[in-house]
């Protein structure tokens, strides 16, 4: 009997069924699945019970890990720290504890690392930004995350992924922009101000927060990748994401990070005569060729 080759449609269906969604996983499962099997070790986990000291006074139930999972483990058999934010708890927002967990882990990755050698970091972004219930401490400690990322990425890569569910906003959108390499899915969103905030501050004519299509056209992973703000667009699959992260780590530290390319960006922005007529097609043209520097320095 001659085996009948499966049709392309059947292959696609099989592939779809074989996929394991990364988006549907919780932060802890995400971190544990990303590192090499059997190497995950969580730090300052739920049983350490360092939760937010500010939420209870506002009638909000804290979570034992404050929504941030820190896992030390290996990727490509080399040590790494994975920082995974739980979008289900308070929208993945950055409070005193959650932000301090991220900043302190990044500092330890640089200062202590593995036997004195700095180790790279992987950040899984799922955050509405600063937690307004801890406003100014969240803001200040988000600044500490930025500082710690900038110090660490000089010596080892800091790789970010925005898988999607909550997306990545506010101060954490700035953090995403500071990554050595940023990976998104089509389901991921990235922007500084959320649509509701823009609508509140500038009116519905500026941004209609109910216009789903507009939101995805501006902030969605496909657009961010096309415009050169993300380095890679991958599908929502655990193995695909893990492979992309391993490849990004192997690539090392870019010769220049995107946020250092001041002259090039200023020159391009200066070309925008009338911002009011600016659209996404113009954007793709404008920043074409500004993807992360391909010349990487391996360290």
């Amino acid at each position, binding site marked *: 009997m001659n085996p009948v080759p499966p049709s392309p449609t059947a292959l696609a269906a099989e592939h779809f069924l074989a996929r394991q969604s990364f988006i549907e996983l919780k932060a802890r499962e995400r971190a544990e699945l990303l590192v090499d099997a059997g190497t995950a*070790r969580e*730090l*300052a986990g739920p049983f*350490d019970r*360092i939760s937010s000291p500010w939420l209870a*006074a*506002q009638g909000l139930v804290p979570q034992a890990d404050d929504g941030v999972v820190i896992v030390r483990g290996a990727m490509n058999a080399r040590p790494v720290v994975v920082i995974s934010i739980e979008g289900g708890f308070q929208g993945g927002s950055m409070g*005193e504890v959650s*932000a*301090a*967990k991220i900043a*302190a882990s990044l*500092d*330890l990755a640089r200062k202590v690392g593995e036997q004195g050698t700095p180790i790279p970091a992987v950040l899984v972004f799922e955050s509405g930004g*600063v937690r*307004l*219930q*801890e*406003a*100014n*401490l969240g*803001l*200040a*400690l988000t*600044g500490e995350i*930025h*500082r710690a990322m*900038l*110090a660490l990425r000089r010596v080892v890569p800091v790789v970010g992924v925005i898988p999607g569910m909550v997306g990545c906003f506010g101060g954490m959108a*700035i953090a*995403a*922009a*500071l990554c050595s390499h940023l990976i998104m899915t089509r389901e991921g969103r990235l922007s*500084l*101000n959320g649509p509701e*905030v*823009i609508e*509140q*501050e*500038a009116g519905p004519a*500026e*941004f209609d927060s109910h216009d789903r299509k*507009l939101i995805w056209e*501006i902030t969605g992973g496909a657009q961010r990748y096309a*415009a050169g*703000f993300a380095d890679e667009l991958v599908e929502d699959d655990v193995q695909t994401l893990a492979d992309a992260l391993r490849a990004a780590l192997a690539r090392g530290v870019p010769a220049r*990070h995107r*946020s*250092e390319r*001041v002259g090039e*960006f*200023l020159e391009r*922005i*200066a070309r*925008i*005569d*009338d911002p*009011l007529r600016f659209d*996404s097609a113009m*954007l793709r043209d404008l920043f074409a060729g500004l993807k992360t520097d391909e010349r990487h320095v391996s360290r």
Partner: protein
Amino acid sequence: MSATSHADGRFTLKTESIPSSASRGRTWFEALCGASSASATVPSVLAGDADLSAERVRFISVVPDPSNRFPRVRKGEVGVEEGWMIAKHGRDVIAENTEAKRPIVAIVDLPGQAFGRREEMMGIFLSCAAAADMYVAARMAGHPVVSLVVGPAFSGGFLAHGYQSHRILALDDPGVLIHAMGQKAAARITRHSLAEWQQLSEKILPMSYDIHACAKLGIVHQLIKVASATAPDASDLKRVRARLSAAIADAREEINRPRQNETKPLRHRQASFEVAQRLAEQWGGPAA
């Protein structure tokens, strides 16, 4: 923007009927740095050099620009072009690469980052990142970096321009505040009424809109009393210059002798202190 004080110490911000190009940021920039040396292409970002304690200091400020082609930055917000321009003005100083690392002073008076659809499209998060990157790069290269907050300092705008300094000084004035989000938007996002939000922000220290709370939280290192925050007189200027010089000296001290990890927590930041301690203990693995 100006602040109206209430008898109970609260205040609300409102737009005054002053020309929109006048601002505290511009006033203090011009007072400390002399005539404006704004870049011709981006008039919303002032940068210039002036002497402070006999050394040449770079001052940077973001100011209103009523005719800016980006409508969302006309009140002095950090927009797409402003973030990158701040980065340029600072990186020019780093690129001098001289023995004496010149200090950089950020004069901060920001209604926030620009709130706009096109700004989001053009990657305003990256512009803010570029500015923050520059300030950290300057610090790591050995330049003292000091912020002087003279008006409101909101959110992403402050993360871009103001937070990444060795020392953050602020005028002790009701019109000066640091916050993650304006009251109306914050109330909406947290599904509170404005009144509920205001009540909470008076009760919970990190939610406060009062600059004294930021000093208690260790976000602001020092508050400076002035006779007028909007029209400083000679003695105000003298005092501010002296405090800036002292802060620059402190920053140099810290650059030469980096601080080790804090050994005791700030009174209102015990949780983050505990986080750092616990992570350091567990980092190397369970004790054998």
